[in-house]
Every structure is written in structure tokens, then in C-alpha cells.
């Protein structure tokens, strides 16, 4: 990817991280850790890869996205807002009784959300259904889904994987946000899911291992590479850092589902603003 394009994506991701932190702080609730780890892949999807139109969010020919790790609305909602699906100001309604920005993705009330998710292990199957529909209708759209590495312990993930291979869904691409942590601790301790490459290969997937899952340009390149694969679905195993961008949140499972207090928010905001300023100063 050309440097200016890569830079623009990095700036967008940095802005989205600030919005994520603000919405979780304002709500005093939300899953910030995994949202920060998956922000760069969502940036790549919505700002470089996916064919979507905020003016026509239900366009039948659009690419689809399913956030199977549905708790990461603090990544999805800011990205949708920045992409123009709804005003950024609406993020302040996150998790509020008088708002419509539900804690987990809600396809009925939040523009741009293609599938309601939140209960882990289910979004991948819905993405398979969307991909089968596209194939039946001879449409060219692609379907993307982001899964958590902890989520892969759900048996239904592997049911979905089998069906994606059976129907040769080469227009389906899953990205696993491999941050190595889940709510109770290290994924390797809670329920080991590795070796993911061999597991997905044996389930009939083309596997792309990405060591820089927090580089939106690198994710974007992998997504474009996935689009050239024929007759089998692709999974991108994206190594990421949970809490990416905020030093005291990085690689710390305690920040899976916790909101920062005022002092922590100020510190996190300062770090994220400094990161953005550095990018924009380049």
C-alpha cells in the first residue's frame, strides 16, 4: 500500500481510538481492551476494503460485516460514525437507557450494523448465511467477520467453519483478533485454542498469518490478498495487542470489560492524543 494511504488509515484508527475511549468513559461501561486490539482491522475494512455506502446502508449489493466478537462495539460504533453512517455525537448515547446505541451490535436500531451479535460463537454462522445468499444470487459482494481468539472455544465456530468450507465460500473472510487474552486471563490458560493455523487449514480454510494485526495497512493488504483466493474461505490470524495504544491497558486482561475512571481516562486520552499528534505531525 502506498505510504500516504497507509498513513491516512493510521490516522483514522487513532481518531477512532479516542472516540472509543470517550464513549466507554462517558457510559462508564463497555469493553475497551478488545476494542482497541481490533480497531485497526475495522479501520482497514471500512476505510479501504469494504464496498459500503453510508447513504444506502441496506444496499443489497454491499459488502457485509459481522462483528462476531460483539462486545467490541467501542470499536465498531466509532468506525461506523467516522465512516458516516451516523453522527459522531450519537456515540454519547452508548449503553444509555434513553439511547439506541446498545451495548452489543443491534442491526435494528444502529445504522450500518449488518447483524445483531453479542452472544459469542454465533456471528460467524450468520456471516456464512450471508455468503451463501450472495452465492445463490450470483452477487459479487464479500462477507467479513471479526472473531475473538477466546471466542474460538465456542463449538459453533467450528460448525460454521465446516459449513464455510463445504459451500466453498471464497468470498467469506474471517479475521481472528489474536490478542491472547480473554476476560478470565490468558487464552492459553483459560482454554488453549492454538495451533490456529493448523486447525483452520484442516477445516478447509486458506490461512493468512499476520504478525502486525495493529497495522491497518498490513491488515488491508491481507484482506486484498484474501480476495484472490478461489474455492475456499480465508481466515486471517491477526496478532494484536489487547488495549493497543494505551500503555497501562496493553496486554492486561483486567481491561477486558472495564471502563476507565476520570483519572485513567485523562491519562489514556493524553496518550492517544499524543499518538495522533505524532501521526499528524508527520
Amino acid at each position, binding site marked *: 500500500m502506498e505510504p500516504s494511504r497507509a498513513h491516512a488509515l493510521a490516522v483514522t484508527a487513532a481518531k477512532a481510538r479516542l472516540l472509543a475511549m470517550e464513549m466507554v468513559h462517558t457510559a462508564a461501561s463497555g469493553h475497551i481492551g478488545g476494542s482497541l486490539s481490533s480497531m485497526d482491522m475495522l479501520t482497514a475494512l471500512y476505510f479501504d476494503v469494504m464496498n459500503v455506502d453510508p447513504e444506502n446502508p441496506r444496499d*443489497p449489493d454491499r459488502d457485509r460485516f459481522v462483528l462476531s466478537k460483539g462486545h467490541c462495539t467501542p470499536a465498531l460504533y466509532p468506525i461506523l460514525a467516522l465512516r458516516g453512517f451516523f453522527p459522531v455525537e450519537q456515540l454519547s448515547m452508548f449503553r444509555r437507557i434513553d439511547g439506541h446505541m446498545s451495548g452489543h451490535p443491534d*442491526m435494528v436500531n444502529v445504522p450500518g450494523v449488518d447483524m445483531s451479535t453479542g452472544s459469542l460463537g454465533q456471528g460467524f*454462522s450468520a456471516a456464512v*448465511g450471508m455468503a451463501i445468499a450472495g452465492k*445463490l444470487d450470483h452477487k459479487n459482494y464479500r462477507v467479513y467477520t471479526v472473531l475473538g481468539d477466546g471466542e474460538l472455544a465456542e463449538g459453533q465456530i467450528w*460448525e*460454521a467453519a465446516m459449513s464455510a468450507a463445504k459451500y466453498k465460500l471464497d468470498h467469506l473472510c474471517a479475521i481472528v483478533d489474536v490478542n491472547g487474552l480473554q476476560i478470565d486471563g490468558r487464552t492459553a490458560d483459560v482454554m488453549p485454542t492454538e495451533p490456529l493455523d493448523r486447525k483452520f487449514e484442516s477445516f478447509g480454510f486458506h490461512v493468512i498469518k499476520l504478525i502486525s494485526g495493529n497495522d491497518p495497512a498490513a491488515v488491508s493488504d491481507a484482506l486484498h490478498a484474501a480476495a484472490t483466493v478461489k474455492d475456499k474461505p480465508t481466515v486471517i490470524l491477526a496478532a494484536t495487542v489487547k488495549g493497543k495504544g494505551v500503555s497501562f491497558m496493553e496486554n492486561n486482561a483486567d481491561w477486558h470489560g472495564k471502563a476507565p475512571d476520570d483519572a485513567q481516562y485523562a491519562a489514556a486520552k493524553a496518550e492517544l492524543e499524543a499518538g495522533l499528534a505524532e501521526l499528524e505531525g508527520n
Partner: protein
Amino acid sequence: MGEKIATRVVYGETLVELGAKYPDLIVLDADLSGATKTKDFSKAYPKRFLNMGIAECNMVDVAAGLATCGKKPFASTFAMFAAGRAFEQVRNCVAYPHLNVKVVGSHGGLSVGEDGATHQCCEDFATMRVLPGMTVVCPCDGYEMKQAVQALIDYNGPAYLRLGRLAVETVTEFTPGYRFELGKGAVLRDGGDVTIIAVGMMVQMALKAADQLLAEGISARVIDMHTIKPLDEELVLKAARETGAIVTSEEHNIIGGLGEAVCGYLSGMCPVPVVRHGVEDKFGRSGKAQLVLEAYGLTPDRIAAKAKAALAMKK
């Protein structure tokens, strides 16, 4: 009474008929297409038939994904797995976003017979009825099933449809004035002393019970309540006011199904005696279907006895 045919057979036949008219109809199954009778559709429309293997949870959510793209999926398996194993998938990916998925549970109730308790689902009305916005339908015979499938494909929303394993007599087709409408029960026999509100194959038994009661001078109204949700409250209220005593009858646990739906409604509107007839909070067991039904009291005799009990409580 007409010929005997299982509602699942008519389900399969009707899907094939509708396949030509509805290009968006997609039928999914989980390795039970011979039993659910979707195999006929798989032969007629192989591209629109998705055999998802023994993986019901994935099947239901794939159906949800299809529905977001404008398809009309009918996801079929045994009632136990559709409304039991995949309950949370139905809840979160079908009912919550109110998607146009038809969840179809065959072999509902004790009449599964020989396979025994693990496969005799007497809880599906309860798990499906409790979901907001869910429509729950269980036709009593083949004639009604055909119209139910037609109505459900035209209904844009989530619904659960229960099919039966056994061949049952056709009773609706020959009832004067009968017409099927989702959410509207059908009065198959009028009567003034007591009302039997039945669903599924208990409707046939209710009619036999009404014959027995009539021989004893008791006039029983029989309502075929094919749609458990939304409940036809108007018809239930009318029966309560006009007959003053009610029996509900279902091939389901008396907890959570039609009986509780009727009780729940009437208790706040027109409290009259309601006696619930069904499976009395027990698991099923193996045996010839007819013998299992008899062992659990799912018989016309028992319905008639319950009707007399309701009458005795009438003020």
C-alpha cells in the same frame, strides 16, 4: 373424518409446491431430511436446499444470515434440537433482530414413540412462546398444515412451526366455515357447557372427547388453537364468557404451553375454571407411540374427564 396423513409429510409436499412460486425460499436441514420430509424439496430444488449436518446451532444462525439478505429460510430438524439445543440461537439471532426465519421442529411431543425421552420434546411451546415477537404454530392435520406453511411464508417475521410424526385424521377440511388464519383459532364444534381448547393432534382427541361428553348430555365447544402465540384472546374470552369452564389440551408439558397461555390471559380478564390437560411435568419414555400417549393420559377419555372436572368447578 378424512384420510390419515402426518403433518410432516404435508410440510414436505407444501415446500415443494411453494418452491416454484417463491424463488427466495431456502430449506435447511440438519441431517434429518428423511424424517422432516424436506428431502422432497432437496430433490426438486437442490441449490436451495442446505444440509448443514448435525449442527443445529449453526443451521439456525446461517438461516438468520440468509434472512438478512432477503431469503425466506425454513430451518428444519427435530423439535428437541430446534427449540432446545438451538434455543439461544433462535433467541439472539432470530427473535431479537426479528428476522424472517421459520424454525421448524418435527417430531414434537410424546408421539415420537420408540426413541424415548431424549427425543420427545414436550418443552418447545414453552421455549419458543417466551421469546418476544415469536409466532408459535402447531397445526392439527395435513389440511391445516398446508395452509399454515403458506401463511408462514407470507408472514415476514420469526416463527416456530411444530410438525408431528404420526399420521393423523384430517378434521379441519370438512368443518363447515373452516378457514386458516395465523393467530386466529378455529371453532370446530360449537357447544355451551364447556370449551376444550386444543392444539396439534390433541384436537382430534378433543373432538372424540366432545362426542363422549355429548352422549352424557354435556355440550362441549372445541377450539383448534393452531397458533399458540399470538393467542387468539378474543376467541378465548368469548369461550370463557359463554361456556364458563375451559379445558386446554396439548401434547406438551402442562407447564409453559397452551394451557398456561390461556390461564395467563383469562386470570386477568375473565377468571373461570381452566383445567390443563397435557404431559404432567414428566419426561417421556420409549414405547409404541399410541401406548406412550395412553401411558401419559393423552387420550379422549382423559380430556372428557378433565372437562367434567372443569364443569364441576363452574359457578
